[in-house]
Each structure stands twice: as C-alpha cells, then as structure tokens.
C-alpha cells in the first residue's frame, strides 16, 4: 500500500505545512515505507488489551486557586514578530 500524492497533500493540509513538489514525492516514498513497516503491528492480537496513553494512572490534580505572580505583559510579547497595543497582530481571520 503506497500513499498517493493526494493523500500526502491532504495530510500536509491537515498539518498546515506548505510542501514543495519535491518534498511531496519524497515524503510519499518515505512515509509509505515507514507505514508499511508499522503494519507489522497488525499481527499482534490485542483484542483484550487496553490502550496505554500514559504510564501514569490518569487522574485530575487540583491545586488551591490562589493568585500568584506570572509573566509580565512585556515578557509575554517579547518574542512575537508582530504586536500592537498588547495584542498579537495577524492578517484577518474572518473577512
């Protein structure tokens, strides 16, 4: 089973990655090969096995809701490429 270029483009779209044509054909080959290797997992009988998403027992941990100092506004905006009036500025999201 080999991925099609359309499938590669669909994944790139989902991941918001702009790929060149060369990258698309390279990833088509490489991802197909990796997925083919991963297909050996289908051999394993896991019908009675629960999935592990974390090795820790999952539980909510709550802390007291007490105010404490956080990062300043200047620190938060110190790394952005574009900000104005304490807001991140980007092209319009909705027209």
């Amino acid at each position, binding site marked *: 089973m080999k991925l099609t270029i359309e499938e590669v483009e669909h994944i790139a779209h*989902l991941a918001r990655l702009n790929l060149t044509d060369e*990258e698309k054909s390279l*990833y088509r080959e490489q991802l197909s090969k*990796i997925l083919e290797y991963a297909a050996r997992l289908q051999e394993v009988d896991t019908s009675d096995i629960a999935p592990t998403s974390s090795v820790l027992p999952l539980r909510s941990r709550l*802390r007291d809701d007490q105010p404490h100092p956080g990062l300043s506004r200047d620190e*938060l905006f110190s*790394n952005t490429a574009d900000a104005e009036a304490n807001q991140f500025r980007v092209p319009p999201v909705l027209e």
Partner: protein
Amino acid sequence: MDELTDLPLNDLVSGLRAGEFSSRELTQAFLDRVERFEPWIHAFICLVPEAALAQADQADEKLARWRKNADTPLPQLLGVPIAIKDVLTVAGLPCTCGSKILEGFVPPYNATTVDRLLKAGVIVLGKTNMDEFAMGSSTENSAYGVTHNPWNLKRVAGGSSGGSAAAVAARMAPLALGTDTGGSVRQPASFCGVTGLKPTYGRVSRYGLVAYGSSLDVVGALGRTAEEVARLFPIFSGHDPKDATTVEVSSPEITFKGVESIKGLRIGVPDEYFVGGIQNDVEEAVKEAISVLASHGAETRNIRLPHTEFAVPVYYLIAPAEASANLARYDGVRYGPRKRAEDIWDVFRNTRGELFGSEVKRRIMLGTYALSAGYYEAYYGQAQKVRTLIKRDFEQAFEQVDVIAAPVAPTTAFRIGEHIDDPLSMYLEDVFTLPANLAGVPGLAFPVGFDRQGLPIGMQLMGPRFREEVLFQTAVVYQQLTDWHLHKPPLPQ
C-alpha cells in the same frame, strides 16, 4: 589548566570549598577547552562565557564568605559548571531546540530542572546542540550544524542530546542536562563513552522542556561517571506543582556501599536484545560487563521481553502523533520568525513549511496521518495497545529480576551521513532504547568497552519504576571494578 577539567565532581566540589581553586578558574578551564575543541566538535548552539564567569565570581564571593563562617549552608554544587540541552529553557538565553522556527526566541522563564540546578549553585556554560525538537538519533537534524563525536570526528555523537554527550566526553563541561524521549540521553552517552540517565517517567518535571512526545519525554543528565550523575539526579528531580504528571515520590541522596553490595543482585539478560544485526564487539563487551558483575556475586538470569521487536513501530506512531499535536503551536504568531502572507492560513503554512526541518515535517506528517479519520484505530489505537504489552513485559520481568542489562544500541557511533537518506534505517537504530520510554522505566547507560575501531560501547541497566538508586549503585560498583569511564578521547591538539 587541563587537569582541573579531569577532576571528578566530588573533587570539584571539595576543591572549591577548600579554596584550592576558584569557580572562575574552574569555569575558565572548561571555557578554554571549549575554545580549543568546539571548532571540531560543535557541541554547543549557544555559549555564554561572560555570563558564566560573572556567575562564577558571585559563587566565589559566596564561597569566600562561607569559608569565614561555615555555619551558613552552601548550595550543593556552588560554582560547578554545567551545559544545558537547548530544549530546556534558561531565562534570558536563546532557546532554539535546534530549529529555525525558534530562531531568536528568548524564553522569559527557567525550566524547573534548570531552576533547581541554579538554586544548587551551578554555572551555565551554554546550550548544547541537538536534533531539531529532539527528533533524531545523530544530531544531524540540527538546523545549526552537526555535532562530531570526540572519539572520531567523522562519526556522529548520537542524538538527540548529542551536544550534551560530546561536551561531557570532550571535557568541555563536567555535567550536562539532556532529554530522553526514545533514547536521546542513553544513545549519545553510549556513542560518546559517558554515563547518562533516563529517569522514570513522572519523576522529573517537564515544565520548561519544549514538548515533543509528552507521554514519553523525560529530562535526564550526563556525566563521566555514575556517581556524578547520581549526585545531580536528586537535585533536579522530584514533584513539581507546575507539572501535573510529576509524582510525589521523594528523591533521597543515593548512598554507595562498595563492591560487596551487588552480591545477590538479580540481573536479567533479555534474549531479544542479543539478536541478529547487533555488532559483534557490542555484544561481546556487554556480555563481558555482565560477567564482571556476576563474578562479584550478582546472579544473572535469562529473561524474555517478547514484544521488543514492536517497540520501533509503536514508538514511531505514538511519538509522531503526540508531536503533531505539540508542534501545532509553532505558527509564527507568538514567538519565532514569521513568514508574511496576505492570508492567515498562508502565514501558518509558509512559516511551518519553510522553517521546520525535513525530519520534523516527516514526523508531523506521520503523526497527523496516524491520528486522522479512518486510520486512527489501525495505527495510533493499535500502537497504544501494543504499548500496553511492552509495559507488561517489563512488569513481568521485574517480578523475577532487580535490573535488566542490555546494549544501548546495536552498533557503535555510525558515520555522519550514513543513515540520513533512509529515515527507517535511522529509526531502527533506536530499537534497544525505545522500550524503556514506552514502559516509563528508568535506564542508565555507561561505557563498557571499545570496538576494534576505538569507538565507545555502552551498556544500559533498566530498572523498575522509581528505582534509579539500584541502577546507580550497580553502575558505581562496575566503575569501581573497571576503568572504561576514565578513557579520554584523542582530540586534535
């Protein structure tokens, strides 16, 4: 001043306290070696010699005051230099993660691990090179150039913490922090002939660690000896309110009891780690190391970890799936450079497409695919179930043995460029390190010999969750009985 950089950590701490040398002299001695060897090795992405010396001067003032009045407690590692992998934040120092997408990013806060070490008095020399976002096994995926192995400059240092391992091996830093998601501390430690710990998942805070595979990522440490890493470990580990996945298990100082303490220690030797594809010299050195421990009273037992062969496909679905979600945050809006476009979606697509490196994009694609509609159950879902079986293998093994001994990697350091065009062949290099991450158990890698080309060979001890102490005690005994950890790489003069 080269002799200062050869001293073990205990002698550095006692020498500083006794005033035999100052923290400035010590820091300068390591910086001198950085200046000499960094052009060949390229272990660092960022160096801060002036800040380090200023920090050292402050440490010297504190030490001078303490010598006049020893009643005041002194931070444990006051004045000792360290290198930090560039995936951990140090407030005010650039943090690139080896990526162009974080070029120029200066985090305003410290990772908890870094913060704890700074409170213990360490001097930060700089940030070490790594595979971009810790995705790689060779440090060839760094956007800032490859790290060369100090034992052979044509060879990789391993990865992703290749810069940290090379810096320690070349005596450019006595200690370093690294991170291990699928072997990224242990494998470079093995390739560079140093000692490296991957702690139990949940024992070390990930706050300020740039996320890759959140159910696998753990901060670890590298030094030349197990005793040094053991001294560092209780300082940077332990529960952190800022990371809800840290467990409230105390991390006491680790005590060492001498060679006779390994009498009766049950060492498991898994058949699945001595299979076809393993380099002969590696197999022989690891078996010899196990027999050294056995000849001093440890009991060896053959054990089975039957799902080992599935660790590569399980890891290379789960880690990329988690990465595809974690790396969604890099969109050029809040940090890092931004590629301009008229449309917001093009800003995202162009910034990510142009600034992520090829391995990172490959893993984001792989993870996105594994999580996408129609494939989720077959890939990600099945991988999580087989992960349960891998975890269970370890639980069953640790009912019979105290530790498991195995090679860290099937080969010694490979040539730069050897695997770069074939990602799957690179992934297969991780076969022996991935299971510990998937099971969340600790692993300690340390040198046990050299192959016929003079490249270091590493062995790892894996233990039950939260039992790092046993790994350290066993490795310290081994290092009392052997001198592999004392060999120095033949660097150009």
